[in-house]
């Protein structure tokens, strides 16, 4: 803390954090590359994982984007009670722990779920949630809401005057689609697809729980298997290189397509276009209801199953919960300190490399970083001693790009509005932090801290690499699922979801009230 404040005082904090981050991530990647054996070390099984990773991401992204169109259109042109709440709810999957959603999906689409009961009743073949179809179902569950939000932003970016003009010219819905909506979709959809594709490319927890086997193993999962089951660090590292290559290739693609920001403001403009009457009211209502059902049903199902069982959860679950909360708070604190230092330096107009360092986590997947850190540190520490600190550190790093996206514009506005006044009054170091920076940036800091805490709380990633007897709550939940204690698992899922949302709410609320 003292060192950080001193660094802030001399204005070296930003470059120092950026350099540290760069060294950590690039050093870790270098360790992975050093340990890698060359592509000849990969067998046909591994190449299948590479192919599966790419095609499941492509298909998940395409399904999410296409299914999001009718929902976004309906939300854009209809006004109804609860619409605002529904739009807000679409942001929730971002901080919903993956493993909780999977519990929910199993409750609805699993063997004993309502869907399969109905299919059996009708004499139809069952839907099997384990395998590639389950992986894609879960990815669509997570990314459909994100896609709807992004496309809805596109719809609302069409000036209301255009819709009024269309109305005065007597456009039919077909004409509106042709002249206003399709051009917008052509501009927005590639970015939406790519955003989802990138998320699914590094998918781990979904593949771990629903995938596996030759037909549904992602590269991240293959790294985990090489690491945990084959104890083959060289192969894990080689697969890590492949994963980095995939991410880099996707980034090259991203340079050609602009990805829209996932959480923009202005999602609720007062005057939307008036939707057409007739049968389209029915289809719009259907689209909204199906989407809401798809999102809410699994969460409801797991809540109904789990909530009554929470009091009878075994004590080790509560221990894990406490451990996870502490880790999430440390992660969020680290992420905030790094984000704030970087954002302030970027606002001061320091070199672009600082911003690049803050965005580096995008090319490094958590499991690749975890493998690399393990390779670097194993000589000094035992696996058990590494598990929790490495998890905390990687979760803090992975939250950086999201935190920076919220903080950089705010820090720039702060400098623009009050930088000269503060300079002229000689406000520096701690005084400036306390009386200017923290009070003025409280809102984005609260939001970023909430994201970081919730993401860390729900993360089931790096921790799985280490055989630890100190599980986090998501790992404990995974272990309960693995031993088929499904009622305890549902209760654990409800607890995990409640804590994750509560952490986000507390930080965000704290920022708003400060």
């Amino acid at each position, binding site marked *: 803390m003292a060192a950080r404040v001193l660094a802030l005082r001399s204005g070296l904090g930003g470059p120092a954090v950026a350099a540290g981050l760069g060294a950590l991530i690039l050093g870790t990647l270098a360790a992975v590359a050093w340990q890698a054996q060359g592509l000849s070390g990969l067998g046909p099984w591994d190449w299948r994982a590479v192919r599966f990773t790419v095609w499941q991401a492509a298909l998940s992204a395409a399904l999410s984007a296409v299914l999001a169109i009718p929902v976004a259109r309906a939300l854009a042109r209809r006004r109804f009670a609860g619409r605002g709440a529904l739009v807000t709810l679409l942001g929730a999957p971002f901080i919903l722990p993956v493993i909780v959603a999977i519990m929910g999906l199993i409750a609805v689409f699993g063997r004993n779920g309502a869907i399969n009961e109905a299919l059996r009743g009708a004499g139809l073949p069952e839907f099997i949630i384990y395998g590639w179809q389950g992986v894609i179902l879960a990815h669509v569950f997570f990314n459909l809401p994100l896609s709807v939000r992004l496309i809805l932003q596109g719809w609302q970016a069409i000036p209301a005057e255009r819709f009024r003009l269309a109305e005065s010219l007597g456009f039919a819905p077909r004409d509106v689609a042709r002249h206003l909506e399709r051009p917008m979709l052509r501009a927005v959809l590639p970015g939406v697809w790519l955003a989802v594709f990138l998320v699914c490319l590094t998918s781990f927890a979904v593949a771990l729980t629903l995938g596996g086997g030759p037909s549904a193993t992602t590269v991240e999962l293959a790294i985990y298997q090489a690491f945990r089951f084959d104890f083959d660090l060289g192969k894990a590292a080689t697969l890590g290189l492949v994963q980095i290559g995939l991410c880099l290739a996707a980034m090259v693609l991203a340079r050609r397509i602009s990805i829209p920001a996932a959480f923009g403001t202005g999602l609720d403009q007062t005057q939307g276009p008036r939707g057409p009457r007739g049968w389209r009211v029915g289809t719009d209502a259907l689209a909204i209801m199906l989407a809401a059902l798809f999102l809410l049903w699994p969460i409801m199902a797991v809540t109904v199953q789990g909530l009554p069982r929470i009091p009878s959860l075994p004590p080790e679950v509560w221990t894990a919960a406490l451990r996870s909360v502490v880790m999430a708070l440390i992660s969020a604190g680290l992420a905030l300190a790094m984000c704030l230092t970087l954002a302030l330096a970027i606002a001061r107009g320091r070199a672009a490399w600082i911003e690049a360092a803050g965005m580096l986590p995008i090319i490094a997947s958590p499991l690749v970083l975890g493998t690399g850190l393990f390779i670097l540190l194993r000589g000094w520490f035992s696996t058990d001693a590494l598990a929790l600190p490495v998890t905390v550190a990687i979760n803090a790093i992975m939250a950086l790009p999201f935190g920076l996206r919220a903080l950089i514009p705010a820090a720039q506005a702060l400098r623009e*509005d*009050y930088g*000269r*006044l503060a*300079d*002229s*009054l*000689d*406000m*520096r170091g*701690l*005084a*400036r932090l*306390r*009386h*200017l920076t923290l*009070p*003025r940036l409280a809102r984005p800091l609260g939001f970023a801290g909430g994201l970081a805490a919730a993401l860390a709380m729900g993360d089931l990633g790096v921790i799985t690499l280490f055989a630890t007897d100190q599980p986090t709550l998501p790992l404990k939940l995974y272990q309960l699922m693995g031993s088929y204690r499904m009622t305890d698992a549902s209760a654990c899922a409800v607890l995990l979801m409640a804590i994750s949302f509560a952490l986000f709410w507390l930080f965000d609320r704290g920022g708003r009230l400060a």
Partner: protein
Amino acid sequence: MLEFRDTITTRGDFTLRADLRIEPGLRVAIIGASGSGKSTLLSLVGGFLTPDQGRILWNGQDITHLPPGERPASFLFQDQNLFPHLTVAQNVGLGLRPDLRLNGAQQARVSQVLDQVGLDGMARRLPASLSGGQQSRVALARVLLRARPILLLDEPFAALGPALKTEMLDLLSDIADQTGATVLMVTHDPRDARAFATETVLIQDGRADPPTPTGPLLDHPPPGLRAYLG
């Protein structure tokens, strides 16, 4: 004495040259067309810009590279002179200590200057609950409290109505008299210049001229200034 010694300041394709002296205690208006570099000249004194060449001196001491907070100057900007999240007393108190750890005597000083600018009883209010004129008074109270020998005004009262603006300029005159400050005031309004400033620096063609008496300059403006004044 404030001196510009052959300063050249370049920002993109804009250049401002200045080579002039301003006697201590003088009130100087800075006049010129929009974009001529009036604010640039103030920023050079305030420390927000550094000239590419030349030096700036105050009483013979080189202040060219001093950071803004350590300069012998107070600055009143066009807007954003107050922090909206701090109370009136805190906004003024920043002029004494940027970390706001004020002792009893310093707090008494804050109350005293607030009384002096006619804001008694407003100490705990937030800026948003004050009128535009009252907000200007808070900023002036801080200027009074800091009592720096140079006062830089970048049209701080431009958003006020004519009557209120005159009131503020009068209050400002009092403060400048009390602190004996050298005042540099950017203005668009020749009447303000006549009322407030004995001398005027004209900026034209990328150059700041040495100060000349305001009345004669405005009575017989050179061609560039005549076009600007209309």
